Every structure is written in structure tokens, then in C-alpha cells.
């Protein structure tokens, strides 16, 4: 357990809370550049929130060690939005109006990003999300960018996979969050398009852990595959476990949130054979990402959910820094530069932004739980 | 030797003087009535004596010990018993349990004097004539029976001083006699009793002495007959019907 790291994290949060008002914008060129961070640092989704902040901190430390941007150091101010839109709005307002940050990294949950986007847009500040995937983010605004592929693509990828397996009867339980509803819509549409049928499609309150009666109902339904559409690994894990306990052997497929290294350990054989469609994993032996993974593990221990999320967050900060190096910290200038920013070579893939600020070049991977480990079975390139 | 005495006992709550320099002294074995209009501070005085409220000035002596700083349960263990206006019985417990819990709450040395708690419980219920209902819930009793149970329970736990807050309230006229004869038996046992009552004839019949409380001070004191006929009593009640 890496207590120090988390204590340090809290120290940052606390110090950001005391928030001394910054001086006039750009008044002093030796002032540090401020990056605001929004993400779920507490709550059910805190697993990938803490991976994201830790990844971002590594990027900032590296740049500072290299001398910063044109001699200016970078500081990162983290705000906890607990995976809710309301908290993300307050966080964005605080970061922009009180801390006077130059750019925002976040949010991580789609709900956070969608809520914070209009605030950043109004202030003409670039907001860059590392792991938000809701299709709605595509049209969330001019200043909104992300390095995570949209779930619109995930729908197509899943539909392809179901097609290849001959699955037509789809069962799904979704949590009532922006991310899950985005996935739910995409899957429902793509299933209808490919001639399949949603035979079970229930929406539950966020954080629900007791799925037994829903699973009891599902047991009497004829279905080919069950899609776990959860907001976090702990709720998704509960779905899988309670379904398996009732003796249902059908194939289970999960989305990004099931992409969790701890699930295999916690749930053991219940997770065996469960498939996950997500972004690729990043291991210490990866030729490109290996050094980052080693650095991360050294500093923060094993990732709470996925080193890939940490890596995405790390690279999203590096992209921002790259752009600031070229055009400075002016919001509109950064925005224009990001749209023209093609083929940035990163440890997670080649990052290019399309005209909506969505990333191109990050592939999907189909993984499977085998002996408690997540193993990649297929790489799925996206346009 | 007085069993209970107070010396300019005062209580102030939020700047309001509820009790004003109340001083009195009660001898062992006396039955003393406490009367006065509503809001004159009678029940408050009982609450201060039992330790539920802490007085702000003055002192209380019980059996020649200053008990001003003693907590309510401790005072009970020293021998101050209390009977509540709103029936201080445990309604969801059986009659038997109501008595038993009183015995079990005695300090160790006093409990040791009772050989068999169950036996003592049975005797107590027989004494108040409710032995045949030992296993019933106390909530099934009539008001008078509840009062008998409450007083009987206090007696069984060996209290010396009884503070009875309107023992005839909620009791049918027929049962009132049972209650008053039980109180007389307390006196015969050598116990000391203080009674708050609105029922003046009841007071006249049973008490040795009467205190009249008005706006937090004792304004009249004497034997029941003289107090009952004192012209000032009417003034205190402002002509209101004192039996009401």
C-alpha cells in the first residue's frame, strides 16, 4: 500500500482548497502555469480517478524536471468531482475563477466532462478529458478535446463482435449515469441496426450492488450474451458475480469499467471468461509504454484500475504541454493548435484530433479474464 | 433529624427564575403535600430533588449529606424514589419485569439483603393485589393499577423518600382509595413522602403538613386545615377552582 502517495494527493487537494487567488493573468512570465484537474477522487469511480491524477502528476513532474515550459514551472490543482456533473461544474468554476488555471485536464467520468465543458467554453479555456467516452462529448463544444475513443465507435465494435459470434439476443443492465446511458443508447441502436434484439434492458440507480432479483428475472429469459454496462468495477463485478451465482453460463461482455486489474483478484473464478471491450492494456514489458508503467508502479504502486487510464491521462497532459510550448497559454490559440495537432506519437497510440476534438488513433482491444488476469485476445483498430 | 432539607434552592433557566430560594426541611416519616397553581414550579422542584435538573444556587441535604453534585441514578440508589405524573412504568414490559428491574437496579449491598429477587417480586405484586397479572404487559393496566405498580415497585426497592407527582391523576375515584391507603402504609412503614396534588381534600386527608408553592417560592406552610382555610390560598389561585 502506498500511503504516502495518497497522503500527498490529499495534501494537494487540501492545499488547492485553500486556494490563494492568483495574480493577474500572464502578468509575470515566471509565474507557474496552472493546470486544473477534474476527476473522481472519491466515490465509486475513484479507482480510475486516482489513476488519472497520478498519471497526470508524472507528466507534470517530468516537464518540471526538464525545466518547464519556456522556463515556467507547471503546477497542477486537483478538484474532486466525485463522478457527478454538479460537482464538476463547481470544480470548473473554482478552477477558472479563483485559481485562474490556464487549461483544464478532465473530467474523467463523462458526466463530469459534459457538465464542466460549457463552463470552460464560456471562459475560452481548453478542457481535455483523458478517459471520457460518452458520444455526447463529440458535440460538447469547441474547446472540448479528449484522448479516449467515443462510445459511438464502441457500439459499432461490439455489434461487429456480436455479429461474428452470431449473437442476436442481447441482455443488458445499465447504471443511470451519463457514461452508461451513452453506451446503452449506442448498443440499443447498433443492435436494432444489425437485426438483433434487446431482450432485457434495465436501468438501475448508480451504485446499486444488489442485482439478484433482476438476475432471477433474467434467468427465465432466453439470451445470447449479457452486457455489463456499469459505471465502476465494483458494481459491474457484483453483476457478474450474482449472475454466475444463479448458474447462468451465458457469455458476459463488459465495457471499459470492467477493465480492472483488481476484479480478477477479488472475484476470482466468477470473472473467468468474461470479455471486456476496452482500450488496450499497458504492461511493464510494453516496448513503448514500459518505462512509464515502471515509473508509475514505483511511485504509486499498482494502478487502482488500469495503467492504460493513467497513461492516457499522462499523454493528455503531454499533448497540452506540447501545444503550450508552441503557442503559449492563450485559450483560443491552444484550441486552434490542438485541431491542427496531428500524429502525435505517444505510448498509447498516435494521437490526432478530428474536427470535433475527438481522438483518432487509439485502438480498442478485446480482452478476456483468464486465471484472474486480463489477457488481450484481439486488437481492434478504429478507422 | 430531617431526612431532606434544602437551603435557598434556586433554579434559573435562560435567565428565567423558575425556583426562588426554596428552603424547607422534612422529618423522617412525615407526609408533606406540595400544592400550588399550574406553572408554580412543583414538578420542577421534584426534578431538582431527583437530580434531573441541576439547581443553580443553594443546596440539598439528604440524610445529612449534601447531594447537590450527585447524579440522578446515584440519588435513587441512596434512597430517593420518584413516582411520575405521566406514569413512570415500563409499558412494554410485564408487571413482573417492572418490579424485577427495580430490584436489579439497587446498589450491590442493598441487593444483597434480598435473598431471592423473584420471590421479592412475587411478594410485591401480591402486596399491591396484582399477582395474578404478573405476566401481562404493564400497558394493559388501568391508571390506578399502574399507579399501584409504580408505588409498589418503588417501595420494594427500599426507597426512604418518596416523591409522588400527582398520584391520583388518571386514577378512577374508586381506585383513589386504594392509592391513598397504599400511601398511608408507606407512612406506617416509616417512609417519608412528598406529594404534589391538585386534589385538596385528598391532601387534607393524608398529609401532616402542606407547602404552597407560587411562582417558584414557598409562600405558605402549615398543617392542612390551616392552609386550606387561609385566605391567601384563594388569592394565590386567583379564585380559580383549586380542585381543577
Amino acid at each position, binding site marked *: 500500500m502506498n500511503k504516502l502517495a495518497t497522503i500527498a494527493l490529499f495534501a494537494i487537494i487540501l492545499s488547492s482548497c485553500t486556494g490563494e487567488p492568483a495574480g493577474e493573468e500572464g502578468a509575470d512570465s515566471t509565474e507557474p502555469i496552472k493546470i486544473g484537474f477534474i476527476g473522481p477522487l472519491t466515490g465509486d469511480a475513484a*479507482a480510475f480517478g486516482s489513476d488519472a491524477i497520478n498519471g497526470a502528476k508524472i507528466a507534470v513532474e517530468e516537464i518540471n524536471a526538464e525545466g518547464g515550459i519556456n522556463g515556467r514551472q507547471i503546477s497542477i490543482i486537483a478538484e474532486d468531482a466525485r463522478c457527478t456533473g454538479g460537482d464538476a461544474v463547481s470544480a470548473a468554476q473554482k478552477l477558472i475563477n479563483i485559481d485562474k488555471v490556464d487549461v483544464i485536464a478532465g473530467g474523467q467520468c463523462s458526466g463530469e466532462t459534459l457538465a464542466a465543458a460549457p463552463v470552460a467554453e464560456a471562459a475560452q479555456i481548453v478542457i481535455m478529458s483523458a478517459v471520457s467516452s460518452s458520444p455526447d462529448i463529440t458535440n460538447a463544444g469547441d474547446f472540448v478535446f479528449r484522448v479516449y475513443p467515443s462510445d459511438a465507435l464502441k457500439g459499432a465494435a461490439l455489434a461487429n463482435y456480436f455479429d461474428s459470434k452470431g449473437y442476436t439476443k442481447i441482455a443488458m443492465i445499465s447504471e443511470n449515469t451519463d457514461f452508461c446511458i451513452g453506451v446503452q443508447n449506442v448498443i440499443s441502436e447498433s443492435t436494432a441496426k444489425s437485426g438483433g434484439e434487446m431482450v432485457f434492458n434495465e436501468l438501475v440507480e448508480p451504485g446499486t450492488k444488489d442485482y439478484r432479483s433482476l438476475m432471477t428475472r433474467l434467468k427465465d429469459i432466453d439470451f445470447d450474451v449479457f452486457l455489463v454496462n456499469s459505471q465502476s468495477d465494483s458494481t459491474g463485478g457484483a453483476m457478474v458475480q450474482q449472475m454466475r451465482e444463479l448458474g447462468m453460463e451465458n457469455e458476459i461482455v463488459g465495457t471499459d469499467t470492467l477493465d480492472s486489474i483488481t476484479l480478477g483478484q477479488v472475484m476470482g473464478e466468477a470473472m473467468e471468461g468474461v470479455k471486456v471491450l476496452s482500450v488496450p492494456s499497458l504492461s511493464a514489458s510494453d516496448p513503448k509504454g514500459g518505462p512509464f508503467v515502471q515509473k508509475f508502479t514505483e511511485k504509486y504502486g499498482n494502478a487502482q484500475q488500469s495503467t492504460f487510464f493513467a497513461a492516457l491521462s499522462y499523454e493528455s497532459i503531454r499533448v497540452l504541454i506540447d501545444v503550450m510550448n508552441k503557442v503559449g497559454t492563450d485559450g483560443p490559440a491552444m484550441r486552434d493548435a490542438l485541431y491542427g495537432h496531428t500524429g502525435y506519437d505517444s505510448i498509447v497510440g498516435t494521437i490526432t484530433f478530428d474536427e470535433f476534438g475527438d481522438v483518432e488513433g487509439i485502438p480498442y482491444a478485446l480482452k478476456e479474464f483468464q486465471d484472474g488476469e486480463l489477457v488481450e485476445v484481439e486488437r481492434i483498430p478504429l478507422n | 433529624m430531617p431526612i431532606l432539607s434544602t437551603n435557598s434552592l434556586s433554579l434559573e433557566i435562560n435567565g428565567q427564575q423558575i425556583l426562588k430560594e426554596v428552603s424547607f426541611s422534612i422529618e423522617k416519616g412525615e407526609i408533606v403535600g406540595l400544592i400550588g397553581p399550574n406553572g408554580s414550579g412543583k414538578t420542577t422542584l421534584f426534578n431538582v430533588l431527583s437530580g434531573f435538573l441541576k439547581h443553580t444556587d443553594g443546596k440539598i441535604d439528604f440524610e445529612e449529606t449534601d447531594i447537590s453534585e450527585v447524579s440522578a441514578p446515584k440519588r435513587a440508589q441512596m434512597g430517593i424514589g420518584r413516582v411520575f405524573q405521566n406514569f413512570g412504568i415500563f409499558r412494554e414490559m410485564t408487571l413482573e419485569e417492572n418490579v424485577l428491574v427495580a430490584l436489579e437496579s439497587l446498589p450491590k449491598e442493598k441487593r444483597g439483603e434480598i435473598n431471592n429477587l423473584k420471590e421479592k417480586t412475587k411478594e410485591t405484586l401480591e402486596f399491591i393485589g396484582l399477582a395474578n397479572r404478573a405476566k401481562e404487559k404493564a400497558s394493559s393496566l388501568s391508571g390506578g393499577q399502574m399507579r399501584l405498580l409504580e408505588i409498589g415497585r418503588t417501595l420494594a426497592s427500599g426507597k426512604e423518600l418518596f416523591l409522588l407527582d400527582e398520584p391520583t391523576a388518571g386514577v378512577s375515584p374508586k381506585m383513589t382509595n386504594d392509592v391513598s391507603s397504599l400511601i398511608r402504609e408507606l407512612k406506617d412503614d416509616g417512609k417519608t413522602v412528598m406529594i404534589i396534588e391538585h386534589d385538596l381534600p385528598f391532601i387534607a386527608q393524608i398529609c401532616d403538613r402542606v407547602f404552597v408553592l407560587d411562582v417558584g417560592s414557598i409562600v405558605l406552610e402549615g398543617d392542612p386545615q390551616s392552609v386550606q382555610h387561609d385566605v391567601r390560598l384563594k388569592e394565590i389561585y386567583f379564585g380559580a377552582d383549586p380542585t381543577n
Partner: protein
Amino acid sequence: MQLIFNALIAGSLAALIAGGLSLVYGTLGVFNMALGQMVLFGGYITWFLHIQMEIPLLMSICGGALFGALLAWFTFEVFVNPFYKRHRFLPLVTTIALSMILDGLILIIFKSSPKGILQGLKNSVEIFGAIISTEQIALIAFTILILCSFAYVLHSTSIGRKIRAVVQHPQAAMSLGIRSPQLHRLIFISSGVLASFGGIFIGIDQNLSPVLGFPITIKAYAAIIAGGRGHFWGAIICAYLIALIEQLVVGIPLLPGGNYIPAGYQHSVALFFIIVFLIFKPTGLFCSRLRTA
């Protein structure tokens, strides 16, 4: 049948927590808003002892319960005892503060990834056409055992009689010489122990994650309010009842045309039942009359 088992599982968990809480609320009149976090701590400590320290499960459970007792004791002395006699709502504020502190501590110490005390799939057996795992049977049996032993203590021992006396008429109890402050401490600590058992239950049956705290607290309060103030059995029966309603809402078609109520309304429907019920019987399910507080 499966639905009834599901309700038994969920209800046992709620009953463990609500039972202790009902005693605390009944005797002290205090709302302990950090209850959910105490539940989680019990579970996490057991997880830590069993998985990290590799101590046998039974001993780990005892360790978790012991820690729960210590935490409850600490909570009582620092966050409740100095305040509740001045005003019984003061601990509402202090324990909310405590719940935030504990939330943070859980995150720092145990991190946010889910934790399970028993790892792997459970052995399932079929009873009356319903599937239930042996662990769940053990959990239900254990809950019933714990509740029965509490019931025994409460109904047939001297200390139990004193507790009930304090619940039913605090002043009369004191005027008999019952030292309620000590009883209050004892009750608060036992509620902490019951809460930790609840957390261990969650850790064995599902998995522990840091945000469970508040929803647990709310559900336990719904049960004790529906059950009637300070009514131990009322709270427990209502905990099971709420669980049953929740399972029925999603498990059987209640809407016309054989349609199901959307699962997202599961909790709302259960709480709605409670509200309707309280409108007709504001004293709660099992209290025969209103008590003057």
C-alpha cells in the same frame, strides 16, 4: 422463491445494521450518521486481516468486530458523549463530520478498488428451486443467530431489562437507580459491533467499495423509523420488509400488461411504501402509541 431468498440475503444485511441503530436511537435519541462508515471499516479490517495478513477467516471476523467495538467506543466518547445531553441533534452534526473523516481514511488506507473478503465464486446449492450459495446460507443463519442472542440478552437478562427500561421511560429508569450513561455507552458499542458484522457480511457476499457508507445509513434509518422509535424487532422486521419490497418491485411484473417497474425505481418504490405507511400510522409499524419524546 428465489425472490424470497434474495430478500433474505439483502434483509439480513439491513437487519444487522438497523437492529443496533434502533437501540441507539431508542435509548440515546441520537442519530449516528457515521454508521455506514463504521460498517465499511468493520468489513475492510476483516478483509485486511484475512487477505493481507492471511489470518484465518473466523479470527479475522472477530478482529473486525473488535475493531468495530473500539471505533464505536471512540466515536461515543469523542463525537457523541460530550454533546448529546445538551441537545440530541448535536451528534447529528458531529457524526456527519466523523463520517467524512472516515470516508477519507478508508480511501487513504484501503484505496478505491473493490475488495472481497472471500475470493472466487461461491458454491451454490438449490433449495426449493432457488439457488443460494452456502456462504449466503451461513450469513443468513449467522444474522439470525446474532439477532436471537441479542433478543435473549434484551428479554431475559438483567442488563436487557435495564436497557428496555431506559428506552421506555428514561427518567423512571434513572429514578430506580439505572445508570443510563453507562448503558448508553454499552449500547453504542454494541451497535458498532453489529455494524461491523454488516460490513463483514458485505465483504463476504459482495465486495467492499468506499462509497457504500451513506446509502447504508439511509436505509437503516428508513427501517428504524418505519419500525417505530426504539422498537428493536420493529426495525428488524422492517429491514426485511423493505428488502422484500425492493426485490418484488424488480422481480415480479407489477404494472398492467405484465410489465415491470423500471429497476431504477427499486429504492424509491420501497421508500414510497414506507411513506404511505407512515401517513396512516405515524408511530411506526410496531409502536402502539405515540411517545412524548
